[in-house]
């Protein structure tokens, strides 16, 4: 994958998105629906933080022992009759998938939703060798017809309205279809049924892989992933190398967290655990099953204390729905396969290419809503800062900003200079203050003042007034009650271990 799949900077793309009224409303409406659904579902279930912590622990444990669990998975999958392949890069994975398609003389591949496949741009590669790849998830199918990429992990066609969709599907149907959801979905059902039954290969992603049994697990609502794993003679599954969990009991925790976080459902309509190709006497399921285990930058996070937790992600999309920036600019503005807060961190982390880090990491106010929403507690807001720091450390920071920060250090490292700077502000503002506020759109205040009026500085800073105030306070100071004194002493005494933050710990 590349950070440069879309033209321009995040800022430029965001501006386009901000000016697209339909897009903004659609994204806002959808994310609000999903976000409220998640809130209600997690509240209804109860003990949500304990579930999150358990989910996090299971993911942490698995990733910390990934060589063991992945190897166990591979051995078990092979014992089940699966052909397992390893791909270091996206290109390797594509090569293996194409090779299978060629060997099978495939004409058509039906696909269920897979973010890894998006990451590899696999459809394009299949078309290149004359194989028709058909996305079968309703949203993905629409996006494919439009020749676009998903703008949301869970709801890929979030940015399309029913009229646009009716136009796209009418072209396939060869007749005008009514812009009615039931009519449109009914058409897709009928159309894709034929494809499912005729396709040579079914291709899927993988939500979780069970190490102890070699099973792969898919969550979905439509039933298309079941079709893809039941009907074609050959199945190819693309799996990120970190998708592993140890056991089915661990899957219960993931099944508790994933649907609730993604869509607010107690459970998706289908969860399927596929353990190998069909048994000899079975009359459905694939004859031949391949699993391609994809690295493509994932292993670069291993052993990196600041980013290893990225591999805990279960791709629920809750951080997108919670993110105020995502809600305003939509997924395409991020310019990569993965959007929203997870995309802002994952895209540069998978690429590990500092020069191309672009300004994705800057497209966040660091409000922490992503962390709060994350079912496995990935500290994305902290990771964004680490990314920014690494960019600066590698000398790819903005030159002007870098110079400014040197000045910042000089001023903030010394109270005298700090006082002088405040003084300069009080004098300098005289040029621009009108009616107690600053409205100029020149220089650094341009962006800020396009939406706001900047307050003017008061006559005296706090530090200039403190001595007088303190004098007055001392004179009128009430005597401290024994109760309050005791409470303060207890607070100091109970601090105990450093880093506990005085009973007000860091999320």
């Amino acid at each position, binding site marked *: 994958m590349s950070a440069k799949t879309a033209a321009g900077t995040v800022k430029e793309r965001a501006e386009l998105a901000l000016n697209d009224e339909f897009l903004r409303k659609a994204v806002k409406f959808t994310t609000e629906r999903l976000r409220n659904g998640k809130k209600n579902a997690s509240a209804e279930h109860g003990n949500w933080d304990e579930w999150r912590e358990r989910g996090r622990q299971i993911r942490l444990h698995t990733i910390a022992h990934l060589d063991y669990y992945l190897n166990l998975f591979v051995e078990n999958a092979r014992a089940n009759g699966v052909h397992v392949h390893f791909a270091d890069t996206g290109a390797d994975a594509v090569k293996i998938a194409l090779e299978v398609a060629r060997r099978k003389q495939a004409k058509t591949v039906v696909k269920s939703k897979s973010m890894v496949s998006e990451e590899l741009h696999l459809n394009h590669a299949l078309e290149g060798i004359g194989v028709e790849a058909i996305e079968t998830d309703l949203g993905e199918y629409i996006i494919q017809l439009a020749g676009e990429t998903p703008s949301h992990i869970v709801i890929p066609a979030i940015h399309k309205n029913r009229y646009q969709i009716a136009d796209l599907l009418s072209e396939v149907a060869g007749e005008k279809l009514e812009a009615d959801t039931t009519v449109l979905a009914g058409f897709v059902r009928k159309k894709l049924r034929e494809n499912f039954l005729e396709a040579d290969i079914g291709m899927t992603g993988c939500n979780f892989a069970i190490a102890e049994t070699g099973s792969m697990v898919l969550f979905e609502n439509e039933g298309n992933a079941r079709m893809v794993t039941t009907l074609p003679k050959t199945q190819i599954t693309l799996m990120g190398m970190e998708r592993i969990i140890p056991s089915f009991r661990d899957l219960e925790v993931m099944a508790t967290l994933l649907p609730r976080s993604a869509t607010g459902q107690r459970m998706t309509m289908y969860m399927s*655990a596929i353990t190998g190709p069909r048994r000899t006497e079975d009359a459905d399921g694939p004859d031949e099953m391949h699993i391609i285990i994809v690295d493509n930058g994932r292993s670069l996070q291993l052993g990196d204390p600041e980013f290893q937790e990225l591999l805990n992600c279960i791709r629920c999309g809750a951080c997108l729905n919670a993110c105020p920036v995502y809600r305003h600019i939509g997924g395409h503005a991020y310019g990569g396969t993965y959007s929203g807060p997870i995309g802002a961190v994952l895209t540069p982390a998978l690429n590990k290419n500092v020069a191309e880090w672009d300004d994705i990491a800057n497209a966040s106010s660091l409000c922490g809503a992503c962390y709060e929403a994350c079912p496995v507690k990935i500290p994305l807001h902290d990771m964004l800062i680490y990314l920014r720091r690494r960019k600066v450390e590698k000398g790819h920071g903005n030159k002007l900003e870098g110079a400014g920060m040197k000045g910042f250090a000089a001023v903030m490292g010394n109270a005298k200079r700090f006082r002088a700077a405040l003084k300069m502000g009080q004098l300098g503002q005289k040029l621009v203050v009108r009616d107690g506020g600053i409205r100029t759109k020149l220089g650094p205040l341009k962006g800020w003042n396009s939406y706001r009026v900047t307050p003017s500085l008061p006559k005296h800073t706090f530090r200039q007034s403190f001595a007088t105030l303190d004098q007055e306070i001392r004179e009128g100071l009430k005597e401290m009650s024994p109760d309050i004194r005791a409470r303060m002493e207890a607070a100091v005494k109970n601090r105990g271990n450093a880093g506990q933050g005085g009973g007000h710990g860091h999320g």
Partner: protein
Amino acid sequence: MGDAAQEHRQWLEQMEAASRAKQASFMDGIARKLKRPRVTEAPAHPLRGAPDFWNAFELTPEERIEKFMSNWQSVGGHPARLADMDAVRKFITDKAKEMGAHYLIRQNEPELAALDLEGALPEAEVSVWNTDADVHWKARSAEADFGVVMADYAAAYTGTVTVLSSKDKGRSVSLLPTVLMIIIPVGRLKTKMGEPLAELDRAGRENLPAGAHFISGPSRSSDIENDLTIGVHGPGIVYALIVG
């Protein structure tokens, strides 16, 4: 074995050899990045599965039925509670007549055979999964109006049914027909999904079916303008018949 098949087998063997060769370096690479030697023994995993408070949670049989039915209903499914298999036969035949179902397909299970749907619906064609090697069973399921299956397990808390595949139990039967009838003997209805999942762990790799499917209602999508549509790919009408 024909030449093409022979050649394909050889290619698979080559790929397998390449994969095995790659496997060691792939795992070593992970260990190296984690800055420690390869882990080859199972690590202690004390936080396996759900928290203790959850494992202790249990509904009474009556609560399970109530919870399952309300969940099934809330996602657009149709639950019913029936006294015995005679009532099930009546329910299915009545629905088949009411909806004008001509083609039915059922799993090859003794409980379903005992229903004698063939006798109860003489004008309909009832197929039994995988009982004739010459039939294209996937296509037969796709043509069916009704699919009839037994649940292997069900979980009340999420309103989920588990169906396991075998030579007598097609994955297609619960997937391709327009209407799905799932029969749940009350003894198979558990509180939580963790219970059937633990059964899969207990069974172990060698004894797992190729497909274990957890179904929680009708096929659905909200991909077009957040508008909920039922029956996008899988069955849009699903009956859960709790018996006993």
